[in-house]
């Protein structure tokens, strides 16, 4: 594991002399790529990715629905918005104890933390995005015969796309952070990237801890750079809204 990311052996030893010496590099080790493929890292990534996809999908659906409902009914907005803004300030790891007590140390608990960590932000930005739609679009839609659900499907939903794209991008980073936090503590099935990080700590392998952290950063950045930022950019370009960072 040590040489895997080019971290010199003895790194941990020098920092913390009392810690167990890291595993020595065996003389006839297979190539790096082979070792990465056969390490726990790939399996952990896949498990985390599945959790992320499932949890983030739930967040998007619940968050967008709540955001739309808040925009549609002002009484609901007045009731939920202050609560959501407050809950948004809560670090997502703080949902872990509640998740443990309510759901136990299991998959549902992890998803609960992930959903709680990202839904409120998506709701708020969806609501803000819908409110920012010029009233003129609604009038133009009505004038051209878009009534009832058609007004939502063909006018209001497309008009909210820039806000939705931005909220997805932001929501993803919240979801990813929440998931990693949850896996650190809740992964009773001994799977996932967060668990691998925790395992590194348990075994006192600094290189594993650092390596997993780097992988977490890389995955978070890749998802943003390859999926969410281009999506946001595409939507904003289409709308003529100028450059986004």
């Amino acid at each position, binding site marked *: 594991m040590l040489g895997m990311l080019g971290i010199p052996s003895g790194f941990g030893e020098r920092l913390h002399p009392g810690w167990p010496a890291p595993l020595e590099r065996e003389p006839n080790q297979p190539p790096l790529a082979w070792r990465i493929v056969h390490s726990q890292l790939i399996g952990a990534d896949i498990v985390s990715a599945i959790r992320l996809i499932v949890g983030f999908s739930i967040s998007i659906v619940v968050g967008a629905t709540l955001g739309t409902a808040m925009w549609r009914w002002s009484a609901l907005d007045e009731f939920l918005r202050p609560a959501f803004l407050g809950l948004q300030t809560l670090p997502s790891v703080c949902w872990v104890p509640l998740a443990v007590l309510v759901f136990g140390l299991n998959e549902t608990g992890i998803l609960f933390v992930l959903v709680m960590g990202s839904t409120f932000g998506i709701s708020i930005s969806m609501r803000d995005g819908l409110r920012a739609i010029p009233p003129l679009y609604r009038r*133009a839609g009505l*004038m051209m*015969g878009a009534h009832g659900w058609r007004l939502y499907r*063909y*006018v209001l939903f497309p008009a909210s796309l820039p806000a939705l794209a931005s909220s997805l991008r932001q929501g993803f980073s919240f979801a990813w952070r929440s998931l990693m936090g949850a896996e650190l503590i809740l992964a009773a099935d001994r799977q996932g990237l967060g668990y691998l990080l925790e395992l590194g700590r348990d075994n006192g392998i600094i290189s594993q801890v650092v390596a997993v952290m780097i992988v977490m950063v890389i995955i978070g950045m890749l998802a943003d750079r390859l999926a969410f930022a281009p999506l946001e950019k595409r939507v904003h370009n289409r*709308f003529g809204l100028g450059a986004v960072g």
Partner: protein
Amino acid sequence: MFFNNGRSTNLKKPPAAGRLTLDRVCKRFAKSEHAAIQDITLDCRPGEFVVVVGPSGSGKSTLLNIAAGMTRPDSGSASLDGIPITAPGPERAMVFQDHGLFPWLTAAQNVEFGLKMAAVPPSERSDRVADALRMVHLSGSSEKLVHELSGGMRQRVAIARALVMNPAVLLMDEPFASLDAQTRTLLHHQLQNLWGQTQKTILFVTHSVGEAVRLADRIIVLNTRPGRIRKEICVELAHPRVFDSPDINELAKLVRKEIEQEVNRANALAAEDSWRPEETADLGTFADDVGSGI
């Protein structure tokens, strides 16, 4: 004085549909001291070009919104060809000041939108969209996105979007107010030609006397606070008009004189006793606005 050269639309056979009637319409908004519009009765003949002029706050837009079905009057009624107006609909197509085009659609898709909502088959849609874009001379820009079009082009797409539905009435809410003078004159020409071709009833709202005189069969001058019809002026100049002709300028001067008093009254009201505008001797050709800045 305003001779008829034989090309007047009055001589053409009027279209069968498109009689827009407002009958003793009143509307007051909450928190407002005065009625936005009070007791307005207006009958637009099929194919007639009616321009409503008035200072800001004279209820011009409210009047148009009632005709569009976006606003319900407190009392009185609005009807199109005898059918009461209760909701917005494509038979009363509206062109907004800020175009209201959808930025996620191309020019052609914007024009197509109403046809799609009306479940017109796709093959027929593309023909009608192409026709409408040709009428506003934008065939070459059909695939452009809204933000890639100039202000004048956007308004032309908005007009095409309204015309493609083949409405009985075209409602225009200061459609050229945010354009520069050259573009506006160009669009006046185009609108005049379009109206000649299509023979639609047009109810057009503006605060520009010059615009009213160029385009209208009949000019309705509104009062402010409350919004009432102050004066109706029939323009008996033939179409298509030459915009810088002496006749037009003469008429514009007359209409301005009619409005001058009202503008001053509105200004005085807005200034709340502390300031009284001086009597304007001659507004001149370039003073088109009747109080847009109030």
